[in-house]
């Protein structure tokens, strides 16, 4: 039988449809989804939708330098004569890449460690994992990421590695809290009595009950990670010019304030729109799942 005709799949598909219906009734989350889709679309098709795709990198045209917003250049041009609108579209690529790569690297180990520590609550496994987590959480992730970036050569890749290195403990702590209460539920005890394997209990019994919290946190974290990434580039420890990173663009443009305000302001607005989109979706998910702890 094809997998989409199986009753289990049907049941899940129905609950997804119900969830989508509730999600789509919340104007806040729909607006968030719109922003995220818009930004993703512009990022994915940047070479085709940007009016001057060649302006993304090393490009100089001093005859059109520092022009205010006009029909030809809706966001104006920077001191090298590059179209800021085009650079913002390419900048979305770096912001989204930052968020996606960091979360892909961070969520699996963070969640597994949290599951282990929560399930073996009170044993040495719990102690070792959670005390290490405490150490990482002792200082804000931005500062630790800055410290790591400072010893590496500044680049987009190293910034992503630095943020990832500092971000996993948040998932460990979230899943630890959930897992250590779920492990006392009857269905977990039933599975234990039935002789289910440890991995079955961790990943098939406990993990599915944490998924809604994890997804909600991921959505909110996309925003945070993008903010931190742009902060790293802003101080010069992340992406380097001429990379069209939004944080780098704000830092460059800040030198020409207040006269050429458009160089810094539009990339800053682009960061805000991106972060806002993910935050609104996160809030919508939190309402949808009726979560409190994320």
């Amino acid at each position, binding site marked *: 039988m094809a997998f989409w005709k199986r009753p289990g799949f049907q049941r899940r598909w129905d609950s997804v449809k119900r969830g989508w219906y509730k999600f789509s009734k919340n104007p806040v989350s729909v607006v968030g989804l719109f922003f995220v889709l818009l930004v993703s679309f512009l990022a994915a098709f940047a070479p085709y939708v940007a009016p001057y795709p060649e302006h993304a990198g090393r490009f100089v045209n001093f005859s059109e330098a520092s022009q205010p917003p006009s029909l030809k250049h809706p966001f104006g041009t920077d001191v090298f004569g590059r179209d800021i609108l085009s650079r913002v579209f390419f900048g979305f690529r770096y912001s989204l890449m930052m968020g996606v790569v960091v979360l892909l690297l961070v969520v699996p180990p963070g969640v597994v460690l949290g599951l282990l520590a929560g399930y073996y609550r009170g044993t040495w496994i719990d102690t070792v994992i959670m005390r290490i987590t405490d150490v990482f959480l002792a*200082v804000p992730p931005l500062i630790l990421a800055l410290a790591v970036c400072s010893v590496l050569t500044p680049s987009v890749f190293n910034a992503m590695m630095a943020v990832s290195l500092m971000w996993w403990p948040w998932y460990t702590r979230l899943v630890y809290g959930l897992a250590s209460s779920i492990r006392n539920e009857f269905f977990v005890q039933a599975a234990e009595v039935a002789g289910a394997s440890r991995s079955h209990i961790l990943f098939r019994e406990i993990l599915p009950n944490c998924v809604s919290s994890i997804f909600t946190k991921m959505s909110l974290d996309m925003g945070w990670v993008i903010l931190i990434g742009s902060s790293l580039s802003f101080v010069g420890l992340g992406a380097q010019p001429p990379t069209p990173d939004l944080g780098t663009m704000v830092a460059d443009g800040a030198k020409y304030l207040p006269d050429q305000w458009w160089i810094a302001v539009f990339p800053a607005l682009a960061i805000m729109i991106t972060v806002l989109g993910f935050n609104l979706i996160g809030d919508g998910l939190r309402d949808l799942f009726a979560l409190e702890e994320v």
Partner: protein
Amino acid sequence: MKVLKFVAKRLLMSIFVLFGLSILIFLVSRVLPGDPVRMALGPRAPEWAVQNMREQMHLDKPLYVQYYYWLSGALHGDLGQSLFTRRPVMDDIKEFLPATMELALFAGLIMAIFGILLGAVAGRYSNTWVDNTVRIFSYVGVVTPSFVFAILFLLLFGYLLRWFPTAGRLSAGIPRPPAITGMVTLDALITGNWAALGDALWHMVLPAVSLALGGMAQEARITRSTISDNLRKDYIGAARGFGVPERLVMLKYLLKPSLIPTASILGLDFASLLANAFLVELIFNWPGFSRYGINAMLRKDLNAVSAVVMVLGIVFVIVNILVDLVVAGLDPRIRLGAERGK
């Protein structure tokens, strides 16, 4: 007694965390690639000079020996020499930390007071235009990087309207009050130097507000949701039914318990505030610890970087203990000594 025991227990845990943090930051600064000595002396320094300095800093020894030297130094208040300023890092910290603490405390006060105020008003009048305005403000506050606020305020109120100064802690004509605490406002207050106090506060407004807005938005959101939830609870109706004066209902029965979630995230918000100070101090040219830290990072001044991270770790340990005490004071269910969240 209970309070003392609680604080002692937390301090003991914190020492462990700080010990771990020292290993972490030591590993980050020594294991990752890059040659700090070569960087400090420049590419043209002769090999023997580099070798000498390496031996001086024990960089030629195995890692655990290096860590031993570093930790025993740190415990004696010697955090090594800054590779860049060539002064003991401890002296730099003593010089720069008060300026940042002053800014952070001021920003923290703004954040807590206005965040709670906005949230309380929005929660009390939920789903009215007041609530919607606060909600929009909160979203803007949460999604805007603090460096963007800093740049915008600098532009708008500093350069365009000229309401506030754009850099530094005091105007040129005003002599600095004698450094007792190192915090200009506090020193001015102690010595009764009102002109300096006013001027220092005036310099602090823009950087402090840019730092506070993000956390303020968070606090407002959380306070709003707890207040509007609690407003619907039976005990509020009961208090009103008994004829308790409305003001008392609002302040004692509604506000006080609603502040518990807000207070618990105050510590986190203060943390992100200090992290953002790294960017905001740079923009406002605030001669503080964070600007020192970020410059150390940009110059790969490893001793200074490790020291900055360790000092911030200590600050957070203290802040978190204070926050826990406040939460315990607000919530009678959390008896001191019992673990939170149970």
